[in-house]
């Protein structure tokens, strides 16, 4: 029954001349012309046979080739299959893949969606329904309705209802139109809103485009509902992107909050420690690709400790060889770490080359989750926000809950005296700097998931990192958190309103003004010793 309905639906399609794919259809598919190919795709979809769908799938997957002789063939690494028969054939000497352009891809996706809307797999059905929600054509209405009749899943039903409503809104039956206008109120799509708004317009002759008052009221009602949803989505999106940006700023800054905030080392090479972490991630990814291709998606998990330790080692070496000699001479550290940063950048360039390296999100960090209509939160950002919280907890535990933290603070406040109560200052310094550098490495690992991995990547974060640490109040973890999130949110709200460049300028001006009010940062340490 279903099969016949589908066939019926697609048979209405004007382009579908044949119900059974003939050799001519395949010949059209092999032709290097979009129009012919579309014709062929539609023909195959109308046919709807298993074999036809397989061909369409091959086309979508990019495994459909044209041999030098102009014959079609589905190629896998080892096998060549004749699409008409599904039989193995000899592997062709040379062949060209059939590349899709966006137009073909759109048609193909619609066709495949229609064929999948009754799949037993719920995910497949949902994806197909969503596809139809946007791309359904009038002829698919019977198909959609029949699918609705049997569909149990709520999400799929919703999508199908919307798809049907979009078609129904043009129906001649005013009852259907009203129902459709009501149903469309469930949408969060601005384009639906525009469609509905069309109903409320007056034509040139002064009459409403939509004659039926009830339909108009329903449309207006739905528009209001969509508007509310859109406005809410807007705020939610901005909020999320602000928090996300804030978490990135924070991750970039946390390492600095230790090396500079707590230890007082003006570490201009901080950005390069981020870079080390990012490259470490890149290398781990490469190793996974080479040696554990089956577990590729887990590379990020392995990269986290590797990034930490690589950066920590680099940091400790820096501390032992250079920074160690400069304690108490804060400004010389500026110069020396600037030099170190140049060296590290060039080293990266020599080792990995000057280009950016590709670090891909593992599958579980790709794409996004639609929390509600029109609010898609990308997974990589969600993971990073959580990761930032995790790193923050780590730093907080280390600084506040271990003796190491207390020792580090004591050493920075009074190195000589710390030695005189028995703190091995040199070892503490190395360790603390190493940890700070390691935290920076973690930051780099996270950044690799959203931004560039290249030799100069660190330079882009150094200014922001210092702003976050200083705005929060040097040495104040809570301050850094507030500053990071605050700057993130502020940037995003301003950006929506004024564009990125002006937003950035405004944020900087805000920082300048804010420091006037709080010359020691957000979480200034008060007390009589501050002035001395």
């Amino acid at each position, binding site marked *: 029954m279903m099969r016949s309905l589908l066939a019926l639906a697609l048979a209405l399609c004007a382009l579908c001349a044949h119900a059974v794919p003939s050799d001519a259809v395949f010949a059209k598919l092999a032709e290097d012309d979009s129009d012919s190919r579309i014709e062929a795709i539609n023909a195959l979809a109308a046919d709807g046979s298993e074999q036809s769908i397989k061909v369409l799938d091959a086309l979508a997957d990019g495994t459909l080739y044209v041999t030098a002789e102009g014959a079609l063939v589905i190629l896998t690494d080892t096998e060549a299959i004749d699409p008409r028969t599904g039989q193995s054939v000899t592997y062709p000497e040379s062949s060209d893949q059939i590349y899709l352009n966006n137009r073909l891809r759109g048609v193909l996706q619609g066709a495949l969606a229609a064929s999948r809307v009754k799949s037993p797999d719920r995910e497949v059905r949902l994806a197909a329904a969503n596809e139809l929600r946007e791309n359904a054509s009038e002829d698919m209405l019977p198909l959609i309705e029949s699918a609705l009749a049997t569909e149990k899943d709520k999400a799929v039903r919703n999508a199908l209802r919307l798809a049907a409503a979009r078609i129904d809104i043009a129906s001649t039956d005013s009852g259907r139109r009203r129902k459709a206008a009501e149903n469309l109120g469930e949408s969060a799509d601005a384009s639906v809103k525009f469609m509905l708004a069309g109903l409320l317009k007056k034509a040139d002759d002064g009459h409403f485009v939509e004659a039926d008052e009830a339909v108009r009221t329903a449309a207006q009602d739905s528009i209001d509902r969509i508007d509310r949803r859109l406005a809410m989505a807007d705020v939610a999106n901005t909020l999320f992107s602000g928090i996300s940006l804030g978490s990135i700023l924070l991750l970039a800054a946390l390492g600095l909050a230790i090396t500079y905030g707590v230890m007082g080392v003006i570490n201009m090479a901080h950005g390069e420690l981020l870079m080390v972490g990012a490259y470490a991630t890149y290398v781990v990814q490469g190793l996974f690709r080479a040696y554990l291709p089956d577990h590729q998606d887990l590379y990020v998990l392995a990269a986290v400790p590797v990034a930490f330790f690589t950066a920590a080692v680099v940091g400790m070496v820096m501390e032992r060889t250079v920074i160690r000699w400069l304690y108490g001479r804060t400004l010389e550290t500026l110069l020396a770490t600037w030099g170190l940063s140049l060296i590290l950048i060039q080293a990266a360039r020599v080792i990995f080359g000057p280009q950016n390296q590709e670090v891909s999100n593992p599958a579980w960090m790709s794409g996004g989750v639609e929390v509600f209509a029109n609010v898609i939160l990308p997974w990589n950002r969600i993971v990073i926000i959580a990761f930032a919280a995790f790193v923050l907890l780590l730093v907080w535990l280390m600084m506040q809950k271990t003796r190491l933290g207390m020792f580090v603070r004591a050493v920075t406040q009074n190195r000589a005296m710390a030695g005189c109560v028995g703190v091995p200052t040199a070892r503490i310094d190395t360790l603390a700097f190493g940890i700070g550098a390691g935290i920076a490495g973690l930051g780099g690992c996270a950044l690799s998931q959203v931004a560039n991995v290249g030799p100069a990547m660190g330079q882009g974060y150094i200014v922001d990192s210092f702003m976050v640490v200083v705005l929060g109040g040097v040495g104040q973890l809570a301050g850094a958190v507030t500053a990071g999130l605050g700057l993130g949110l502020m940037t995003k709200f301003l950006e929506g309103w004024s564009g990125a460049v002006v937003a950035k300028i405004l944020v900087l001006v805000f920082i300048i003004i804010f420091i006037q009010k709080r010359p020691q940062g957000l979480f200034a340490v008060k*007390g*009589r010793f501050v*002035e*001395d």
Partner: protein
Amino acid sequence: MNAAVHDNQAVSGSTGGGHLVQPGELDLTHKVILYLENISVSFDGFRALNDLSLTIDAGELRAIIGPNGAGKTTMMDVITGKTRPDAGKAFFGQTIDLTRMNEPQIAHAGIGRKFQKPTVFENHTVFENLELAMKMNKGVFTSLFFQLGDEARDRVAAVLQRIRLTDAADRQAGLLSHGQKQWLEIGMLLMQEPKLLLLDEPVAGMTDEETERTAELFVSLAGKHSLVVVEHDMAFVEALGGQVTVLHEGSVLAEGELADVQNDPRVIEVYLGR
């Protein structure tokens, strides 16, 4: 104590009438150089000064003692503008409202201070430290075109003599020993020629002999200058010979001659010990 209350009323009267309280000439018509009235200061809920009232007469040499944490240094912070009181009035002479002025203005008006922990300009020589403190116009332009005249040189030399650092005149102040820094700071105060000197533990870290000399110095300054000296060294306080005020928990516990105060059981309890 009664006198203080009386004087305080006089002050409120003068301000109540919308008197212009700008930094200006020091008005000593009531022979009182410093009024503190009901000063309170708290830090995160802790009351360091609690309704403190105190008056210092012109030319007086007053010793202030009291337990650690009684609020002595905080009181000096209030007088010199480092700390703003939460409540209360602080007047220099009849007209100068200290709570409305910043540190340089107060210094300019004639209040000089020696800190509990000696603070000198460590990278300047001893001579330069004294020269910087010298009483003169301290504006930018004057400094730009300033020339050290012979007279000024003599003044510095005299002070160097007095603080026994003539030999160290060209040494960096940061290289001095603790006691030497104490002296240098006293010297800077002398160069400033303030009308009111606030001295926070000036003899800490000095030998007994130096302590005596310091006492002599202060006594000789009294009369022309007014001095407020905070110390824990009873021998020194005795040598100063003036009135003694005992602070405790942010307000005045006792006041009078040293001998009386020393026998006050409350003072013995909280401060002197048995």
